[in-house]
């Protein structure tokens, strides 16, 4: 299995009465009241130090994403941070999950910047192509809801053509018209960096993943039990498309906190978990469900599955501040937390039950400071990572969606070669 240190890059200092005082963590939390640029300067340095530490500690990949106008995570341009990581001597993958395609105009910019990152990193880039959260696309960037997906599909076609066809060539799209498509450079990886899709459980995205043989990652903070149904929907689609059951076709994001013992973990992290669920996921339903954004089919599907909130929906109306450690980690399994033994066992259960090969661990949650994040990351890297790395090896699955230049812990299909190393 591949484990990716995924950094949310959120605002660590939101006030305790945040959820009572403000309608949302996204789109409208007033910047002058809440976002101190000097604090952000500090957080940005911490974020990068934490990513660099994860690189040093042996995670298979470093994960970044893109979001706008919020305290949950505001990596407005993941490519800027990725370029800092790409410059380092390393054999870890850089998983940019990803560039929100509909927000780039013209989207050839993504083809160029991803190619640049791929060259700079020596072919270590994963090119993530998310549709984008409703808050980012229609809320912060003002896209017409009914045009988000059409723009996404067209941008995807332009970018993949730009990477695979000899330039210059004309591209006559509905939204983008370019007389000369001819980006310099093309990516090092051929035919192009592995493409990963990410989403909150949209039927259209699963189909798009299997049509193109891309991986799909489910990004949710509700844990693996709540994710089971949605991931099964994806695996059903994989089967319907006649593709193999390779777990590397799928990824999952999971918040993880590790202590020396279960009791230590509770003592160290419960407050931060509560903060995360109370503040970072404080998003009203109507911000995620703008009419026109989802097809009638998807809305119907979600209503029938009772999963209207998608990736950002809350489970129930409980107050996170009165939610206990047991509820977070045992009953709902939203967070995997405890001693290394507990964490290893739960990760194995999660990964097996969802059948995923790419695990994106979130080890920095909302209000966790630099020191505690490092503690969590080190403990995970030293006591958990070595014990989950072998998952899926015995079954002989090969990760065809891993960047060619990211050779850390490389495993080939041949056991003989592995022994020789």
């Amino acid at each position, binding site marked *: 299995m591949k484990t990716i240190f995924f950094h949310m890059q959120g605002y660590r200092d939101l006030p305790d009465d945040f959820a009572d005082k403000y309608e949302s963590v996204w789109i409208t939390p007033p910047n002058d009241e809440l976002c101190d640029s000097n604090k952000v300067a500090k957080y940005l340095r911490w974020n990068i130090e934490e990513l660099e530490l994860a690189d040093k500690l042996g995670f298979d990949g470093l994960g970044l994403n893109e979001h706008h106008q919020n305290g949950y995570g505001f990596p407005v341009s993941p490519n800027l941070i990725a370029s800092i990581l790409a410059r380092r001597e390393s054999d870890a993958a850089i998983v940019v999950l990803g560039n929100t395609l509909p927000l780039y105009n013209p989207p050839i910019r993504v083809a160029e910047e991803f190619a640049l990152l791929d060259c700079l990193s020596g072919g270590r880039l994963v090119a993530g192509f998310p549709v984008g959260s409703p808050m980012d696309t229609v809320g912060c960037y*003002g896209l017409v809801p009914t045009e988000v997906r059409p723009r996404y599909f067209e941008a995807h076609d332009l970018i993949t053509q730009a990477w695979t066809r000899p330039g210059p060539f004309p591209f006559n799209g509905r939204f983008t018209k370019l007389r000369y498509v001819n980006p310099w450079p093309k990516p090092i990886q051929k035919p192009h960096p592995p493409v990963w899709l990410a989403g909150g459980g949209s039927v259209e995205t699963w189909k798009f993943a299997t049509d193109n043989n891309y991986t799909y990652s489910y990004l949710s903070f509700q844990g693996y039990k709540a994710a089971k149904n949605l991931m099964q929907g994806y695996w059903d689609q994989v089967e319907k498309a006649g593709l193999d059951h390779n777990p590397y076709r799928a990824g999952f994001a999971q918040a993880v906190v590790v202590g020396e013992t279960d009791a230590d973990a509770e003592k160290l992290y419960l407050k931060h978990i509560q903060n995360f669920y109370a503040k970072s996921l404080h998003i009203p*339903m109507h911000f995620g469900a703008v009419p026109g954004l989802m097809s009638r089919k998807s*809305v119907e599907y979600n209503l029938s599955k009772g999963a209207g909130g998608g990736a950002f929906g809350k489970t129930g109306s409980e107050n996170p501040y009165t939610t206990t450690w047991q509820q977070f980690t045992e009953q709902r399994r939203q967070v995997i937390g405890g001693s290394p033994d507990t964490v290893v066992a739960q990760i194995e259960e999660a990964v097996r039950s969802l059948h995923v090969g790419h695990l994106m661990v979130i080890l920095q949650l909302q209000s966790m400071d630099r020191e505690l994040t490092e503690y969590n990351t080190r403990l995970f890297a030293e006591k958990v990572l070595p014990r989950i790395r072998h998952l899926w090896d015995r079954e002989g699955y090969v990760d065809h969606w891993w960047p060619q230049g990211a050779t850390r812990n490389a495993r080939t299909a041949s056991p003989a070669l592995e022994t020789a190393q």
Partner: protein
Amino acid sequence: MNAPLKTPVEIDPRFLPNQAMIKGDGKPVVFLHGAFGQEWSPPLDTLAERRRVIAPSNVGAFDLDELVHMDGLLDLLVYYDDLFNGLGLERFDLVGHSFGGMVAAEYAAMFNRRVERLVLIDSLGLWRDDQPVADYNYIPAERQPALIYHDLQNPGVRALMASQPTDTAEIIGIALDRMTALGSTNHFLWPIPDRGLHKRLRRIDAPTLIVWGAQDRIVPADYAQDFASQIAGSKVVVIDGAGHAPQIEQPEKVSAALVDFLS
């Protein structure tokens, strides 16, 4: 209120037939619905006593996929022009409410030989920085009525609310219809309902009546004057005790204004 059955009108094969509600005989009047979807309000019944009233649905109102053919107002106006041809209309009176008001104004500016008389009711289409049009998407569904209507105790509003179903499947069906209809109007309005109508209002030749709810919380009544100042010879009627949908809250006053102006 006695809404007529829908009469499907063929447009072109890319679109589902338009689900127009048609009632009455006589000189045609077209009513274009607002941002929240197709409706049949009491003033249309009054008009239908002496006129043929046609209330179409917006493109995409039942299938958002139709909107891939809509890259802006030009495509929309061509759609409505095809629809009016399909209905066999030549010159006709055009009434538009909210989103439909914007479409009606755009149509009357573009096809200015075709519209006989024009009525705009709490119309979208203009923008003032000092009084921005309210955002009716980014509020909880349960707070929308208080934004749309002046008074939730108004008999017209209460009658409308009371007619909502209680059966779960029906509620989901209506919620889906409403989301789709709103999605179809959002397509032409998001994120700011201004597509440059102010540049084209001067082309409107038809005698124009501008009707506004005095307590409109979505498009404040000052917008009525903005429309009036740019449409030569237009007349404004501000209706007290009404929000964004005066045809629901003050049906008698709106009926009287329509009958008076259109006859």
